[in-house]
């Protein structure tokens, strides 16, 4: 009986136990990252992509492993749908993206059918979380939340600066996002209690070559405040045409939209970009995870400033964080189990402003808050709320002439 030693027995027990250990070790999470890296939303898509590229390294430092499968849907909703199919067939366990609401709705139909979790990084159209999708969560405010927070911050801006504008015109792109924002403005502006009369709402095509007619129309109304929902390319056109037509409103404020804080906007307009205000969620630069992301982002993207990119990069990183964290907790890549873990997310430590990342029954994170970000010396600068502000807001804004 001396054939079996204690060491051999231990080794045999380890071998027998191994399959269970292997089963408990989750495979790397493959995330299909769908972004508009070409087409008319390319600037924002590329910006989101830069945040995603550094995410695996940052997440690894926090003990989470992901592998990204990159897909460009060319700013085309139909392409988003077919690319979602393709990336799932290529082995993606989860989808993250797509920056644009129309594409999000198209992708959701696919992920719902294939029972694959879909974490929306950016996309504000309310219907994304209103259609009962079971495999979708959104870590981004709805258009309604954005506008509610944005309008509340306008009130705070007026109080902080003592400015007393009387009239405003709302100008918006007529894409899915812009139209959703228009709906939210129509519903929420009368109830916001702002002492500013809304004279008109003007929709424009964001792909238009110039916005001179739009600006003539605005000039005819001569509002004190221009409320805008733009993308960066059309925001540039809007500003240029305002300068050419010598129209200077007292304030240009976005109640929650991209465009006026993008690097492209600063490069194209230089000092004319200054003093525009955007009210939207922003990176919390005091959070350790934001610092970790910035530390990884800056050397990887020397041509881009994190301060100007933190919105797109931050929300895309957070969407990947949600997926990676759920995978870590679920210990599997099975779609159904992974989705249960996604819905149970409760991440106190993250990048953007607001409370913990958690999702309500509809898959919406209700804890995101906005900040008032004013362009100062070509840098988006938090001016409200006071607790996060690094500068005081300036209203009314100086005229176009003489800016340096």
């Amino acid at each position, binding site marked *: 009986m001396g054939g079996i030693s204690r060491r051999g027995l231990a080794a045999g027990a380890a071998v027998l136990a191994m399959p269970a250990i292997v089963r408990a070790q989750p495979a790397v999470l493959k995330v299909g990252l769908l972004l508009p*890296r*070409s*087409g*008319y939303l*390319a*600037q924002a*898509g*590329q910006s989101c992509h830069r945040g995603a590229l550094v995410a695996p390294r940052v997440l690894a430092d926090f003990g989470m492993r992901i592998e990204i499968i990159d897909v460009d849907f060319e*700013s085309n909703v139909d392409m988003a749908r077919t690319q979602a199919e393709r990336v799932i067939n290529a082995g993606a366990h989860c989808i993250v993206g797509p920056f644009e609401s129309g594409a999000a709705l198209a992708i959701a139909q696919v992920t719902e059918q294939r029972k694959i979790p879909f974490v929306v990084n950016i996309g504000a159209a309310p219907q994304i979380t209103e259609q009962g999708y079971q495999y979708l969560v959104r870590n981004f405010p709805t258009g309604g939340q954005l506008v509610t927070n944005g309008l509340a911050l306008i009130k705070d801006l007026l109080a902080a600066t003592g400015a007393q504008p009387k009239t405003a015109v709302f100008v918006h792109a*007529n894409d899915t996002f812009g139209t959703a924002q228009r709906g939210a403005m129509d519903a929420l502006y009368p109830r916001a209690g702002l002492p500013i009369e809304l004279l008109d709402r*003007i*929709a*424009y*095509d964001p*792909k*238009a*070559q*110039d*916005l*001179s*007619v*739009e600006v*003539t*129309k605005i*000039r*005819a109304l001569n509002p004190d405040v221009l409320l805008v929902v733009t993308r960066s*390319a059309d925001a*540039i*056109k809007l500003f*240029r*045409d305002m*300068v*050419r*037509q*010598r129209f200077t409103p007292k304030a240009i404020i976005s109640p929650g939209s991209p465009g006026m804080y993008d690097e*492209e906007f600063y*490069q*194209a307009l*230089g000092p*004319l970009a200054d003093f525009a205000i955007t009210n939207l969620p922003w990176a919390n630069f005091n959070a350790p995870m934001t610092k970790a992301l910035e530390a990884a982002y800056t050397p990887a993207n020397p041509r881009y400033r994190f301060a100007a990119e933190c919105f797109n990069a931050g929300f895309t990183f957070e969407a990947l964080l949600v997926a990676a964290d759920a995978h870590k907790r679920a210990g599997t890549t099975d779609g159904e189990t992974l989705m249960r873990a996604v819905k149970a997310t409760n991440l106190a430590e993250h990048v953007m402003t607001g409370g913990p990342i958690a999702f309500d029954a509809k898959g919406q994170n209700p804890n995101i808050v906005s900040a008032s970000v004013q362009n100062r010396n070509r840098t988006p600068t938090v001016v409200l709320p006071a607790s996060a502000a690094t500068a005081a807001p300036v209203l009314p804004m100086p005229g*176009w002439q003489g800016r340096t």
Partner: protein
Amino acid sequence: MIMAELLLGVVVQGVMTGLVYGLMALGLSVIFGVIRVVNFAHGEFAVLAMYAAWLAHTQWQLDPILAALPIAAGCFAIGYGLQRGLVSPFVGRAEHEQFILLAGVAMVLLNLLLMGFGPDARPVNLPYALDSYAIGPVILDKARLIVAAVALVMTGAVIGFFRFTRTGTAIRACADNLLGAAVVGLDVKRLYALTFGIGLACVGAAGAMLVTISDASPVLAHGFTLQGFIIVIIGGLGSLGGALLGGVLIGVCEALAGFLWQPSMKSLFSFLLLVAVLALRPQGLLGKRA
């Protein structure tokens, strides 16, 4: 009174924009009018010219209006070579074959631009880009005014070339009666190549000047092609004056629609105008009945 002044301003803006549209569409019209090949890579070549103007400005501080001339010459050479090397065998072949060829050229060109310059819009920041003149109640954008004036001169030069030079007359002879032109000994292949070159030169000049108004971006290409088609169909395929007229009509129509209704409905009115022309005068406003 104020409304009338604003309307006048809008119409003037529309005319100026329309003249640039017209020069751009002129290239499409020239090529179709003579070779009977529709250049589906029209918008991509315009964007290529925009990037060339951007490069000329960033590298050598060359004003895009001045750069338009060498860029037009470069586009002429590309067009000449393209016709000789690639398009020529497809002349006279089925239209779908021509379409696939030029759509392929468009795709290659667009993706090369994306690879070379990325998707970000490239602005040309000129000292006068944001200047304007106030003439009474009308505010005229300086860059647009210069571009419109140059577009008008260039269109006149192209029309003059086809009407008053021996080469232009020979090209028109090819367009009117290809067999007859060949019988009298005209070098049709060379004349076709010259025509394609002239067509692309127009697109190149228009594209180069357009960067003073709009940033260079690959996204613009499809829109330019579609707009070019609308303009030449309204003006009359193959009619040079028609391209200019179509451009101005579209410019004014879009401007008025944007001002009087919603700016987001500008394109709708362009298409309505197109439908009306197709229904009432299918050959276009200045086109000849086939």
